[in-house]
């Protein structure tokens, strides 16, 4: 028994890797769907967006890169779909250098679906370097932060920017954030100073960091990780259905089941083996 456990503990880690791969691929090939309850933080985000009137302006900060795409793309798409469906004007900007090439096709795709006009119904201001400094500038003078948009138009001349000078002039700010700089920096730098309404969609890794901001009322909604995106997807596509839409986060959430179980089993078995062999050694 002791020998077995000892051998078990020094199992080549490539077998562990293989197990992980199987527990991800298997439920994708043979999907099993479990229903899930919508989180209160996502519900509150959705409800606030439902209060928007046609013509209201929202600033979306798309701060993610390909690595965090699986978690945030479903939210970003559903969010644009949600706001376009409500005739809300959307201005998008980004603080991550790798975000523009990633989000431009998504924005154009959704704008085309809703027949939105560039410059009037939506605009993409592009990437701005400088992390906290850039956020401070968005709070201070967004035209100065983004003198030209991603298509080299003069930002101040865009009809959608009429009456907009700083972050405060937007109805809401949506921060789709994969880390630094992102939601936390928005809250730190300008939320309190200008009393802004901000909601966040973020990766699982950052979620526990942002919950205190949500509880303190610094964020009005928080969609965390894959479940957050999946819940929001469910809410949006339930009320604003689209034919043939792929609910990527919902699909991924079903796959996560086995992945989590696998990790839990590894921790439990690893510890059992560790304690049994340690007792024998002592």
């Amino acid at each position, binding site marked *: 028994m002791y020998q077995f456990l000892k051998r078990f503990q020094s199992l080549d880690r490539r077998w562990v890797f293989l197990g992980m791969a199987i527990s991800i691929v298997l439920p994708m090939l043979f999907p099993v*769907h479990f229903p899930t309850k919508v989180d209160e933080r996502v519900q509150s985000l959705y409800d606030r967006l439902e209060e928007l009137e046609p013509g209201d302006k929202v600033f979306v900060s798309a701060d993610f890169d390909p690595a965090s795409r699986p978690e945030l793309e479903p939210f970003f798409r559903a969010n644009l779909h949600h706001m376009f469906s409500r005739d809300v004007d959307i201005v998008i900007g980004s603080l991550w250098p790798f975000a523009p090439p990633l989000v431009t096709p998504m924005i154009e795709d959704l704008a085309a679906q809703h027949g939105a006009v560039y410059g009037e119904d939506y605009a993409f201001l592009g990437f701005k370097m400088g992390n906290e400094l850039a956020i401070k500038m968005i709070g201070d003078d967004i035209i100065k932060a983004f003198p030209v948009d991603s298509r080299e138009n003069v930002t101040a001349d865009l009809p959608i920017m009429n009456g907009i000078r700083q972050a405060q002039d937007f109805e809401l700010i949506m921060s789709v954030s994969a880390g630094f700089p992102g939601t936390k920096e928005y809250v*730190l730098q300008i939320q309190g100073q200008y009393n802004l309404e901000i909601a966040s969609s973020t990766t699982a890794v950052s979620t526990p960091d942002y919950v205190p901001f949500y509880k303190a009322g610094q964020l009005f909604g928080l969609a965390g990780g894959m479940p957050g995106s999946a819940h929001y997807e469910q809410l949006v596509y339930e009320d604003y259905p689209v034919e043939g839409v792929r609910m990527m986060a919902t699909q991924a959430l079903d796959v996560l089941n086995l992945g989590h179980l696998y990790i839990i089993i590894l921790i439990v078995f690893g510890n059992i083996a560790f304690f049994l062999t340690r007792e024998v050694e002592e």
Partner: protein
Amino acid sequence: MITLPLTTTGFGIVPLTAEVMTLSNLAGVWVSIFLTLAIFSFLYEDNPIYKLAEHIFLGISIAIGATEIYFGVFKPNLIDKLAEGRLLSIIPLMLLVMLLLKVTKKLDYMAKVPIAFIVAAFAGVKLTGEANANLMTQVAQTMPDLPAVYEEHGIWSWDADGAGVFSSIFLVLGLCACLLHFYFSARQTKSMAVVSKVGIIVLMLSFGASFGYTVMGRISLAIGRAQELLGLDKPPIEMTIGAGGDPINRMSLVRMMSLTTLIIIIVFLAVWQKKRNHQED
């Protein structure tokens, strides 16, 4: 909280429009599959295919970062403004030149001025931001009105995820204990030790939550890659390659390409491993 009946799963309804895939797109999909599997081959062992992919990654990520920074900052905020003849923009240009002098041996001390500028600017901005959002607001939010909480949730309410007077007091005292755990200039008395221990317990629960979420985040990323390798990232439409030809299902096509690439990489690894074993003998 409400429970929603789910009408469409991820594999839902699919529009049956045929699309044309250009050869460049086809090549792109294959390259992307190859690079993905090449990086994953590191899980077996560090090998030439992985090294190749890794160095391509280094080169391309730096170049794309530089391009986006050029179009996102240098062009609009500096070059365009200088071209307009804005005299004030000469100052950042000078600071920039001083910064770049860092690579020289003789004038590298000049870079201290722009470095001082940027560090001080960050320090100033962070100072007020942190003190406001992370200190003042967080403290202000940890002063619950207990009678009001009792009226709303009672001592403990399962319906509101355990909100209530107990949790409110736990939050205040827990936070105090954590803060006192970080009180370094206090002499270690018995009561301080107890408070400190409570602080540690609260911190560990907090880290546990973080841990669980991080596991979820990392697996989510792997799921994203698997979705692409299995062709689940886009609807499985029928498509033709180039102008003519028979239509083929996108999902089957991607899966076929993934499988072939996987086999090629495995064969390569096997040969490489054998050759290496041989050399070692």
